[in-house]
């Protein structure tokens, strides 16, 4: 059977060593701590979590910016941890695009749009001027930075936030990648522009059959963008499900809390207190024993949740949860909020 998966993440751990004084023992920031999934071509996956959940580190590892501490990332058969030299890493990077959160920060302020878009091509050996220009024009038209001649020689500070982000997207697309990691691509843009950019990304994804990892902390946009959602908490994926399935049947208590924390512009909100757990996400250096959410969980099972980490359960087909509440409820609809 042909392996359709573009990307396979296998029990990935990415830990960063903490430098301390010479005598103190160094600890590790366990930014990604046991994540596995597969991503086929053309699918959009939303990675939802708060800051410190590990979602950005996961994306960066997939992009080859961090080296996996253990486990692996396999992209079209290429194993990231086994890449020996710069050349192989180079090849790996060719098929991946990166859209970052800060549109102005992601663009070198001293390069014009044309130069910015030329850079990835220069680096990867596409040096024919005519071909470069052709791709630049195509790319700019695709992100609707038109008329192209108006924008092509502008510098980042001359563009609005939305226009800057379009350049970032165009740059990510210029080598015709197969996967794009978009880390909070619209959270620094104004509300009215966000929708435009999200729609643009969606259109590009569909047109090129791109796999997209869409990272966000804003669950409300997820419905418009992705086929699957992964919820991350404290460096682990606590729930993984197709979008509609998760929104109607959320199993993990954290997911439930997240969903109830999201405001809709409804004036009745002002009259009701939201039911959310207190506390903060745990430190990634010293995560709590057992299930990492248990200190804040109203349904924690004493003796179980505070001693051992839950494995992954599948209470519904294709819907995975790392929570002891579902330990003997495979394929059952229990505790759905």
């Amino acid at each position: 059977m042909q392996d359709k998966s573009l990307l396979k993440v296998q029990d990935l751990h990415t830990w960063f060593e903490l430098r301390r004084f010479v005598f103190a023992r160094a600890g590790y920031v366990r930014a990604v701590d046991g994540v596995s999934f597969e991503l086929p071509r053309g699918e959009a996956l939303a990675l939802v979590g708060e800051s410190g959940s590990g979602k950005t580190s996961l994306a960066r590892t997939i992009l080859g910016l961090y080296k996996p501490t253990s486990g692996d990332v396999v992209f079209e058969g290429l194993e990231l941890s086994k890449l020996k030299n710069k050349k192989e890493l180079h090849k790996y990077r060719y098929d991946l695009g990166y859209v970052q959160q800060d549109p102005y920060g992601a663009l070198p302020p001293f390069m014009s749009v044309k130069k910015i878009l030329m850079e990835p091509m220069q680096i990867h050996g596409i040096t024919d001027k005519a071909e470069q220009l052709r791709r630049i024009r195509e790319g700019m038209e695709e992100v609707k930075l038109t008329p192209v001649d108006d924008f092509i020689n502008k510098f980042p500070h001359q563009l609005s936030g939305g226009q800057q982000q379009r350049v970032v997207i165009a740059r990510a697309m210029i080598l015709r990648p197969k996967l794009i990691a978009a880390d909070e691509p619209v959270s620094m843009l104004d509300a009215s522009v966000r929708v435009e950019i999200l729609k643009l990304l969606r259109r590009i994804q569909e047109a090129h059959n791109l796999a997209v990892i869409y990272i966000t902390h804003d669950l409300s946009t997820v419905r418009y963008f992705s086929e699957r959602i992964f919820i991350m908490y404290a460096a682990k994926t606590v729930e993984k499900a197709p979008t509609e399935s998760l929104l109607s049947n959320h199993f993990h208590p954290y997911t439930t809390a997240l969903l109830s924390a999201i405001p809709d512009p409804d004036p009745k909100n002002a009259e009701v207190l939201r039911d959310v757990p207190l506390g903060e996400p745990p430190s990634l250096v010293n995560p709590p024993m057992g299930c990492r959410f248990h200190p804040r969980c109203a349904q924690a099972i004493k003796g179980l949740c505070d001693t051992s980490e839950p494995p992954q359960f599948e209470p519904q087909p294709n819907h995975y949860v790392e929570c002891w509440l579902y330990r003997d409820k495979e394929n059952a609809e229990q505790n759905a909020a």
Partner: protein
Amino acid sequence: MSTFKRAFDSMRHYPSAIAGLIIIGLLVAVSIYAVVSIPYSEAINLWSSQAEWSDTPRLARPAWFNLFRSQKLPGTTVVRTSDFSETVAPLTDTTSKITTVLSFDYEYELFPEEVNVFFTSEFSELKPQVTLTWIYPDGKEVRLFREPIGTDQRFSVSQDGQLSRTKLNGLSAHVGLFSDPFSDEPTVIPGTYQLRIDVMSFEPGTTVDARLVVYGSVHGVAGTDHRRRDLMIALLWGTPIALMFGLFAAVGSTLITFSIAAIGAWYGGWLDALIQRITEVNLQLPVLPILIMVGTFYSRSIWLILGVIIVLNIFSAGIKTYRAMFLQVKNSPFIEAARAYGASDMRIVFRYLIPKIAPVLVPNFVTLIPNFVFLEASLAVLGLGDPILPTWGKILDDAYKGGALYRGDYYWILQPAILLLFTGLAFAMLGFALDRIFNPRLRGV
């Protein structure tokens, strides 16, 4: 680049920057003029110790001093036999007497500084004999000299003690020959003076040319120094030398420092640590004593000194400052993006990190230029300047050694000093304005 264009536009708002730019423009114009009007080899020759500056007075004031004086200081008068006709009176078939009368007008109120007569003659064996007779405006004659002369000879009239004792009542020739030496208070007699030159030649074909120089007290735009050299040459040529030295030293050291700081900051680890340690050691080294040692024991050539200065300034405090800036930028999103699309380390350092911080370099290096200009001048004053180049520092050195302040020859010191001052001022003003432009946090100041 757009950053520089923006900078130029903002400069309009800073009058100090504009003033600085104007002065620098003037200095550059002067440099170009100097290089074009006096070619390098000629300048060196004119300033060297072998140079003959016979037609200019010693320690003359600049000519424009006279604008401020009621009693004008006299200028220099030069008269040559070639300007006048000679009368030849043959005596035998080999001997003849050639007479030329040089005449000039002397209308100044003050006495000249010196009087010299220069002879050049051509003959085979027998030296011609020359008689010099001075003729006052009223016709009175005084014989100055009767002697045989060689091919190249100079008669320092003012220093002829015998002449002064016997004929001029003890007064020096440059006073006595222009006044009534026997009056109580000799004053200048204005009028037409003449010098009759009688040449007794003993061979046919003997020629004698003479040149009378009556030295005044002023010369040229800048005056002269103790070796009669026109200071303008050194002042003019000093400009491009100062600018070039400052520029090369500033550019050379800054660019290299910058690149090393970037590389260290980006790669981190042992390379960064090594660079920091080298810098810390280098900061302790005393630059001036080292330069003095190099100059004294090895060579004072300006290129060598420049090289040593650049090398010593590479691992300077700038490394630490720039490294801090690079470390900040290292984690920027656009650097991360560049890594993500596969940029190599070197590419990131030179095409991303450096251009991002480069604008900061500009004000730093503009303010650095006068430091090096002064350094060169200081070395010269210490006697370690380049031995052949005419620089401002060299003038100061000569002036100091010649006791200029003690003798009241203030122009000798002030002219190069003021030029140094203006150079420093111009670059400093421009540099501070640029600093405010490129460093937005200072903008409100």
